[in-house]
């Protein structure tokens, strides 16, 4: 595997702009995240949550401002983090081979790969479907596989883009439990969602976006008691998902 950077944190985003075809999609975002816990990026549809994650992950280049992961170079930052997409692309091979693929890319030795894949399969509850082709999995199983494939590389930061938006409450609960296990292992999670119950359950702090601007960056307690803004109050008062975790 590549040499990890001395420090991936803090993640420092400064005056971040992103525009396409003259349309400003993100404007003037600045915040800093330390190396532990779970941050949720919250906001209405089209507020720029996914875009912000993809920019932080290095999939897109900002049109203004900067993103720095500690003292890591862009290549070091990318190799030290992983992302779970809202609709993850699965290779046309078995669950095991999909997870193994992420390690093969990093030239991990075969015996080590077997151990790491086995751990990822167990952590993510994929033992029953490990030999099945990834393309025939259910939505919940696919997301579990996406998390396993991301986690197996031992990232120091895990970026997740609405991983439960297509799932039923039971599958959502399983994914949320997995996220908690990953956070407990010391992985920094940044999770985009519009689900207030998920925020309540998982978040240590909240980045609230609206119309491509950062409206607030608050610890979860402060966010839940926030009184100053109608849109944010609406989010707190009207959870969008039934079947919330108690």
């Amino acid at each position, binding site marked *: 595997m590549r040499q990890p950077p001395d420090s991936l944190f803090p993640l420092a985003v400064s005056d971040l702009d992103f525009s396409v075809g003259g349309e400003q999609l993100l404007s003037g975002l600045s915040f800093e995240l330390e190396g532990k816990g779970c941050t949720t990026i919250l906001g209405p549809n089209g507020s720029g949550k996914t875009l912000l994650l*993809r920019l932080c*992950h290095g*999939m897109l280049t900002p049109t203004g401002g900067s993103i720095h992961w500690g003292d890591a170079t862009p290549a070091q930052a*990318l*190799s030290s983090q*992983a*992302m779970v*997409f809202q609709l*993850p*692309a699965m*290779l*046309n091979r*078995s669950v095991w081979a999909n997870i193994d*693929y*992420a390690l093969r*890319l*990093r030239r991990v030795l075969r015996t080590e790969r077997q151990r790491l894949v086995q751990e990822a399969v167990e952590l993510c509850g994929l033992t029953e479907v490990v*030999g*099945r*082709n990834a*393309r*025939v999995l259910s939505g919940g199983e696919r997301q579990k596989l996406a998390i396993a*494939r991301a986690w197996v*590389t031992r990232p120091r930061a895990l970026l997740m883009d609405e991983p439960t938006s297509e799932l039923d409450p039971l599958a959502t609960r399983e994914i949320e439990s997995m996220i908690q296990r990953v956070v407990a292992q010391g992985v920094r999670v940044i999770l985009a969602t519009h689900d207030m119950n998920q925020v309540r359950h998982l978040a240590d702090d909240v980045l609230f976006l609206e119309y491509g601007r950062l409206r607030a960056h608050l610890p979860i307690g402060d966010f839940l008691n926030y009184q100053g803004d109608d849109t944010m109050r609406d989010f707190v008062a009207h959870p969008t998902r039934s079947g919330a975790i108690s």
Partner: protein
Amino acid sequence: MSDFGDALMAAAGLLTGLNPDLLEIIQLSLFVTLTAVTIATAIGIPLGGLLAVKRFPGRAFIVLVIDTFMGLPPVVVGLIVYLWLSRSGPLGVLGLLYTPTAMIIAQCLLVTPIIAALSRQVIADAHGQYDEQLRSLGAARWQRIATLLWETRTSLLVTVLAGFGRANAEVGAVMIVGGNINHVTRVMTTTVAYETSRGNLTQALALGIVLILIAMLLTLLLHQLRRLNVEPG
């Protein structure tokens, strides 16, 4: 031989009797077609892949040309190759006209755009689906290309088989540049056309049966490959 049934029986007799002339024609046909398709694949798939994943000036024009050339009339291709290879043409000194090589060139020109255009679409779809995920997993450019080709292998094979089907059924271009010379450039399709014009339906039918059998084999292969596209395990 006025009766179709009698002609069919005689054709079957030629085939089961392994008539040497017939075997020679089938052998030359397969040699010309397989060589042309191999060359067209070696050019078409990398070209399709390049057009699918790279953005460069003139790309849209090249895509337009290739898509247009998918429907090239074979006789026009035959005529162009003829003009190039004829004694007064720019490549006349090579003396390739009325040889199997000329037929291979003509079939290549017909099949390469088909393989390039279809593989461009296949790889472009896969690129859209996988590229960001693969970059996220840390795949280098060559690893992404290798993965895309592996993931689309079945569909790419289907495009090659489609090219083979087109080349195998081709008659106009190979007739013009090959000249349908007995024991030199006579292939299945040109023989069918020639023998039919002479009223010799037996050999025409025998080769027609072989052509249909090859088409059936191809179709079976295509169905099988599509079925295997999602293979558990």
